[in-house]
Each structure stands twice: as C-alpha cells, then as structure tokens.
C-alpha cells in the first residue's frame, strides 16, 4: 500500500493568515489536537521562518521560540519542525529552536538559490536534525533546473526536498511532472507543498503523490497564505478513501479543524478575487494581506499591485516591494490626473 507522510503547517504557514498573532494557548491547543490525531510532524515558526518577526513581514505577537516550546511541551508522538529562510533566519536562531524542542528543520530558498543554504544544512546535520529542503516559487523554473537545485540541497545533507508551490500557480500536470523529475534524479525523499489559489491544492497534492511524493503538507482548514494550503483534514479523508497509509485519524482532524482552528481564524482563506489573481499572476501567496493593506492605504485595487509584482518577478520575502509598488502606482495616478 502507498504511504505518505503529512506535515501540518497550520502553526507556520497559518501564521500568515493570522497576521502572526498566535497566542501561546492557541498553539498549545492546535498542537495537542494534531498530535492526538496522529500527525507525525507539526511545523511551528513565524510564517517567514525563524526570525521572521519584523516590520517587513509583521511582528509576532508571541515570540516564536515560546510558541515552539509550547507546542513541543504538549506533543506525545509528533515531532516539531521549524522553517528557516537563509537571509532572514540564521544558525543562531536554529540553535535556540533546537533547545526549545525542534527536531525537523525545513530550509527554504528561492528555487534558483539553493547554494545559500549550505551552512544551515550542515549545522542542522551536526545537530542531528532531520532536514528538509524547500524550493520556493517552484512554478518559475522548469523541472531540470529545479533538479539541479535539489541536488545541491541533497549534497548539503537534505533528507527530503520539497517542490514548493508558494504562489499556488501550478496545475496538477505540472506538479506531477516536477515531482517525477525529482524522483528520477534524487536519492532523497520528495515532498510537495500546495497553495489553493487556483483551487487545486488537493488536486496538485494527489498528482504529486501519484508521481511518487513521499511527503505532503497540509494545514487545518487550509489556514495559510493566499487561499491557504491543502486542508489537512481533507487530505486525511481523501487519502483514507484512496487507501493511502498516513497514520492520520481523519475524524479527529475534522474535529480539530471544526472546534480548534475554525474559532480562532480571523477569516477563512479561500479562492476569492485577490487569491485567484495571486495564483494566476504567479505571485508569492504571502503578499495577499500586505497588498490588501497597501491597497487600502493608497486607495487602489490590490490586483494592480499584485500583477505589477508578478511582472517584476518578485520572489519570496520581498514584501517591501509592495509598498514601493503602491507608492509608484499612486505617483503615476497623480501624474495622470494632473
């Protein structure tokens, strides 16, 4: 029987949708529910990874290190993962995260920049962590270029490399083909991280699975950037129906989504106007709320900002360009009006 490992990222990707306002008690409750439902890996970090708390990305209400401790404290079987983006977080935060209970490190770079992750992989291996490489915005490059980058991560010590559809811009055919290329060329496990901006997060995850993916990501109720991720409870139900071994209790996950996550969500991420445009234009999902805020502040349609960011080929983490683009669009409008 096929088996796949699910990592729940409600407490990391979900941090974006929460505008990084998770409270300690909320994290404890969510982690406990996931642990009891058999989720093997739970990711807990600021949405932009360790040390993401900033003006650029939004300050955390509760220090992420405290949230990691809270989650680690209530889990009986699940292991805690943290995300690290080289250029944002450093080995300094990595060391503290491990002291707080992190056992799996996911290291994310833009899909062409894997070689900035070497020092972090090596440090993580030295600390005997399980390591996962995250190639973000993977819709922007063809399979063969992604393979080269994944092989770099493999050479640094990655146990698994993910194709990360940060923009929710892929369709199932592309997701499957990219996973297949990884399976053919890598000795590591292969993962897929979906966003639902075009409504195909589950479809892409299934295509990835069919192509041989060993790991998939989900978040309860899809709590995540843009239109959110593949909902963990939905993945559990679908995979169960397909006869795929996950070790998850779909009923308990449905309860966790219904009674633990839903009441604390500020909104239900969905394929609304602005999320669809993110997937369609191929823009980093996390830009959603930042672009909405800037659009309101400078009185424009968020789609204008998002499309321009796509045109400029903005990559993960470039939230500062949102205000910059909004200011420039505002100037142009003023110029046109006068």
């Amino acid at each position, binding site marked *: 029987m096929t088996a796949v490992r699910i990592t729940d990222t409600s407490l990391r990707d979900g941090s974006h949708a929460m505008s990084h306002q998770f409270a300690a008690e909320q994290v404890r409750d969510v982690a406990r529910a996931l642990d009891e439902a058999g989720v093997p890996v739970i990711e807990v970090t600021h949405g932009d990874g360790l*040390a993401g708390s*900033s*003006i*650029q990305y939004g*300050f955390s209400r509760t220090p992420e290190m405290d949230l990691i401790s809270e989650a680690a404290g209530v889990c009986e079987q699940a292991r805690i993962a943290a995300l690290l983006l*080289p*250029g*944002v977080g*450093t*080995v*300094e935060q990595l060391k503290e995260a491990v002291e707080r209970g992190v056992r799996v490190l996911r290291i994310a770079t*833009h899909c*062409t*920049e894997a*070689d*900035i992750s*070497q*020092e972090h992989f090596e440090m993580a291996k030295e600390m005997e962590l399980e390591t996962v490489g995250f190639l973000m915005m993977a819709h922007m490059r063809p399979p063969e270029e992604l393979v080269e980058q994944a092989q770099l991560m493999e050479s640094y010590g990655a146990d698994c490399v993910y194709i990360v559809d940060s923009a929710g811009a892929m369709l199932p055919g592309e997701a499957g083909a990219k996973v297949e290329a990884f399976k053919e060329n890598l000795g590591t496990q292969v993962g897929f991280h979906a966003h639902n901006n075009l409504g195909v997060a589950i479809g892409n995850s299934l295509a990835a699975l069919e192509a041989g993916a060993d790991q998939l990501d989900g978040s309860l109720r899809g709590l995540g950037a843009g239109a959110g991720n593949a909902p963990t409870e939905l993945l559990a139900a679908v995979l169960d129906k397909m006869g795929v071994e996950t070790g998850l209790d779909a009923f308990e996950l449905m309860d966790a989504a219904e009674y633990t996550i839903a009441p604390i969500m500020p909104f239900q991420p969905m394929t609304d106007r602005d999320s669809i445009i993110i997937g369609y234009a191929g823009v980093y999902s996390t830009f959603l709320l930042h672009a909405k805020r800037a659009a309101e*502040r400078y009185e424009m349609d968020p789609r204008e900002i998002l499309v321009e960011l796509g045109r*400029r*080929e*903005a*990559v*993960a*983490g*470039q939230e*500062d*360009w949102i*205000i*910059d683009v909004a*200011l*420039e669009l505002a100037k142009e409008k003023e110029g046109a009006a006068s």
Partner: protein
Amino acid sequence: MSGDRVRVAIVGSGNIGADLMYKLLKEPGHMELAMVAGIEPESEGLKRARDEGVEATHEGIQPVLDDPEIKIVFDATSAKAHVRHAKLLKEAGKIAVDLTPAARGPYVVPTANLTEHLDEDNVNLMTCGAQATVPMAYAVSRVTPLRYAEMVSTVASLSAGPGTRQNIDEFTFTTARGLEEIGGAEQGKAIIILNPADPPLIMRNTVYIVPEDDEIDEDAITDSVEGVVAEIQQYVPGYQLKNGPTFDERNTPWGEKPLVMMFLEVEGAGDFLPKYAGNLDIMTASARRVGEVFARHLLGVEEVVA
C-alpha cells in the same frame, strides 16, 4: 608619500579588486595606485592591471609589505586571508582598508563615522547592505533617537558571489550590528534576498525605522535624510532615494509607533562590474572614498570630506 599623493595597493585580483582598480585609476584623488597583488599568475585581474600600466604581482601580499612607500592597502581577498594580512600590514606600518567580513578593525561608513577613526590602522567596510542603509539610520538618528532599525536588501542573484552565498548569515549579523553601532538604533535587523530576475535587477534596499519617541519632526528627518543621500551621491553616483522618507504607523512590540520608510536603489557605475551590481559598486566606491579620506589625512590636506 612624496608630492601630493599617497601610494596605495590592492590585494586581491578578483572582481572586487578589479572594479576598485578602475575606480582608483579613473578618480585617483590623493592616491596613486602602485600595485595590485594576487596569487594566480594567470588571473584576469592581474592581466588587467598590467594592461593599465599598474605593477602586478602574483606573489600575494609580500611585495606590498616590502614596499615602504605603500601606505594604504585595500584588502579585497577573503575574511580568512585578511586575518593573516591584518597582522602583517600592522607590523609593516600600513593602513588596511578591509573589504572582507574579517572585521579586524572598527566598522566605518564614510558619511557617518569615518572621521572618528582616522588614527586607526585597520578599518572594515562591513557589508554592501550596511554601506547602503546604515547612513539612512544615521540620518534619522541624528534627529531623533531610534528604538529599532531594519533593512531589507534585494540583490541580483548574479551579483552574489560564492563568498556571500556560503556565509549569508555573516551579512545578517554584520549589517544588523552596523545599524546599531553606527546607525544609532537600539536594535538592528537585516534581511537579504537574492532575486534571479532576467534582466538582473538593480540593487534595492528598504530601510524601516521605529523612533523611540511618539512625536517626531518629519520635516527635520526628511532634510537630514536628503542631506545624507546627497553626500553619498558624491562618491556613489548611482545611489538614489526612490521613495520616501515616507511616514506611517505600525503596531510594534513597543506599542503603536511611528514608522519611517526609505526605499533606495543603488546602480553601479559600471567601471568593471555590470551596472545592476550596485551592491558591489557601493563597496568599492566606499573603499575608494575611505582611502581618499585617509590619504588626505596622511598628507595633512585640510579639506574635510567625511
């Protein structure tokens, strides 16, 4: 140091060394480029030096140390090499302008604190991001105290060499410290992003400042920032304030606070490296300026340029 020029040398014949060489030849000021030193006999940088009529050696730093007339040495090698060079240069009584992350001497930014360190024999230029953004923090902090300063650098992937890539944490640590120690922020934070867009994008930097006080004099901040930008443009012509200072409020760990934002672009002069590589240009241009200020100091030239 006969006449009106100080003899200087460049150690390191890679891209940075070559760009700096062309800058020194184009605009020598009170310096005379006497030697370029490398370790690869066939290196492109040494060949270029010879083509320009500059003495070139592949015997490393030794010939530089042996020339008593060379007073200022730009080190564009690596942090590891500079640790060794720093000691040798000190013993030889030469001033080291360090472009590597080694940081054996104090951090300097020409517009902010260079004049405080003219009696040192080794100064460090931190990072490209620091040269671009620390002056902005400094410009605001001389008007109002800073609780926090954050910078985000976006550079073209092609302009980030293996040194930066293998030790990207160094950028983060050093730049954040620069924002604190020279920029005057109680707490500094730095983020770097590599973007592979084609054609390559010109270096961009965003600076966010959270002042200590809730009431700030926006006009005074704007004047101060514009003043510093004009000073930087004297030695980095492609340095530009694209937007800002713009003022907003943010919810921060210190409560609802005013926020000052500056959006900068740094286009290189294209002396040797491509124009989009403003991140490399600002390092070599700053190094040239630091060398010039030291040279004038050694010569006793009165003009204060810091």
